[in-house]
């Protein structure tokens, strides 16, 4: 069931190579009076309307939270290369008809890869716009056959202590685990990303495949997934285990519910330099029209 959701921007608008390879230089060139091509001119106009001008490849791949490699934003890009990702298998088990270890290349052979340009909002109040490539999680779950009793989906990140220097410290209870309610997991916006800007997803961004749930804070979008388990009860999630007062199971982007230690009302788009302005954070990160219905009747200050 690919293509259930349509981008505000089409792929060619987002990916002129010259733009993503060196956005800053390109912008400087524009400021210096270089003539606009029809293509990039259209991309800018459309991007600004939708608030969806993608961040540069450099922004997306050098500013990461992947605590298994260290807590610094530049630790993942420094150390992630140590992780071996081939061959890669995803264990799919629990309440499924066809449990087992699925080879990544077999998964890729069966999935339809499409581009999804999503806003990405970190719980730390910074954000990016990222042109992911990937497939709908629903398609992967359908491949394994979800059983009638399944209500939740649990995910687990690879834990390779030799390759991941951050796991020497108990920053979190390793391995990193996350979870979604089944309807969230089956939603057309929820994807497993395998690429960015049409290239294989870099290791610091969660290679070879990671979850992307654009209406939730970034930490829900678990990286380098090795296990997916269908369950009938709410699975534990890493940040909730570490600090349940600050991080709930749902963790939907919500400008009205502050993190106990900082405001979530505004965010700053990464890559805007030293005078980058704050912008208002929209409810559900701007995807309310698609997902608000999932939470009808729920008190979102309680189920944060």
């Amino acid at each position, binding site marked *: 069931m690919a293509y259930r959701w349509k981008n505000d921007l089409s792929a060619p608008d987002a990916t002129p190579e010259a733009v993503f390879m060196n956005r800053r230089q390109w912008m400087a060139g524009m400021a210096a009076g270089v003539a606009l091509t029809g293509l990039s001119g259209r991309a800018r106009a459309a991007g600004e309307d939708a608030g969806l001008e993608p961040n540069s490849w450099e922004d997306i791949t050098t500013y990461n939270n992947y605590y298994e490699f260290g807590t610094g934003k530049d630790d993942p890009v420094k150390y992630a290369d140590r992780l071996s990702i081939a061959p890669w298998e995803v264990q799919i088990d629990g309440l499924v008809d066809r449990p087992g270890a699925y080879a990544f290349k077999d998964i890729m052979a069966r999935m339809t890869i499409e581009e999804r340009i999503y806003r990405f909002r970190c719980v730390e109040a910074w954000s990016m716009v990222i042109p992911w490539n990937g497939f709908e999680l629903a398609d992967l779950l359908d491949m394994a056959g979800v059983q009638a009793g399944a209500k939740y989906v649990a995910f687990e990140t690879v834990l390779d202590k030799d390759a991941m220097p951050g796991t020497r410290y108990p920053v979190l209870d390793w391995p990193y685990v996350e979870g979604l309610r089944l309807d969230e997991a089956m939603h057309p916006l929820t994807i497993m990303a395998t690429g960015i800007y049409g290239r294989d997803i870099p290791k610091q961004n969660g290679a070879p495949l990671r979850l992307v749930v654009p209406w939730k804070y970034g930490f829900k979008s678990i990286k380098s997934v090795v296990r997916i388990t269908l369950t009938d009860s709410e699975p534990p999630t890493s940040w909730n285990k570490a600090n349940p007062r600050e991080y709930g199971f749902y963790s939907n982007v919500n400008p009205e519910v502050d993190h106990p230690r900082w405001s979530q009302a505004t965010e700053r788009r990464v*890559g805007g330099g030293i005078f980058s302005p704050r912008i208002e954070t929209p409810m559900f990160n701007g995807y309310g029209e698609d997902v608000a219905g999932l939470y009808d009747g729920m008190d979102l200050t309680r189920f944060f």
Partner: protein
Amino acid sequence: MIAARINALARRVPTAAIYILCALPVPVLFYMGATGGLGPEPIKALEQELGKIALQLLVAGLAITPLRRHAGINLLRFRRALGLMAFFHVVVHLLVWAVLDVQIVAQIWADILKRPYVTVGMAAFVLMIPLALTSNDRALRRLGPRWRVLHRLTYGVAVLGAIHFLWLTKGFQIEPLAYLAAILGLLALRIRRLPMKKAVGQGS
């Protein structure tokens, strides 16, 4: 031996050099932030680096007395420079937070009142103001023995600074705990000293 050599060397270093050296990170960091050297999110990086340098200077300042008493290394004449430069970094850290990071005036005030780690950081800054204002020879003379009592506020400032850092990190992280441990250790060296003062006499 080593202490004597360090002392001899230190006597030849003008205090102005310490001021210049310790102030240097501010223009360097701003230059790096403006030219991409601090990564794609320079505001947070700038804020965090300035805060850490302020803490490092506070730790250095707190180390002066234990170094003299326990190791015979006398760097006392640099302590004022270390303290004032710590204050300088705290002021710039605060300005970066307010002007470049938070940006919204109402939000700045709300954060100070509402966010405990911000409150703690602000308290440390406020406690530093009288210390910075009295870090000159005239104030030292005029206050006499009260000057020393007043400047013990530094202990509180350093502890609050470390708590501020600890409180804003996510998960269990070593770095802020290392600062807190260093500060508490340097303070503990002083506490043990007090009752022994008269008995030991001139020390090492």
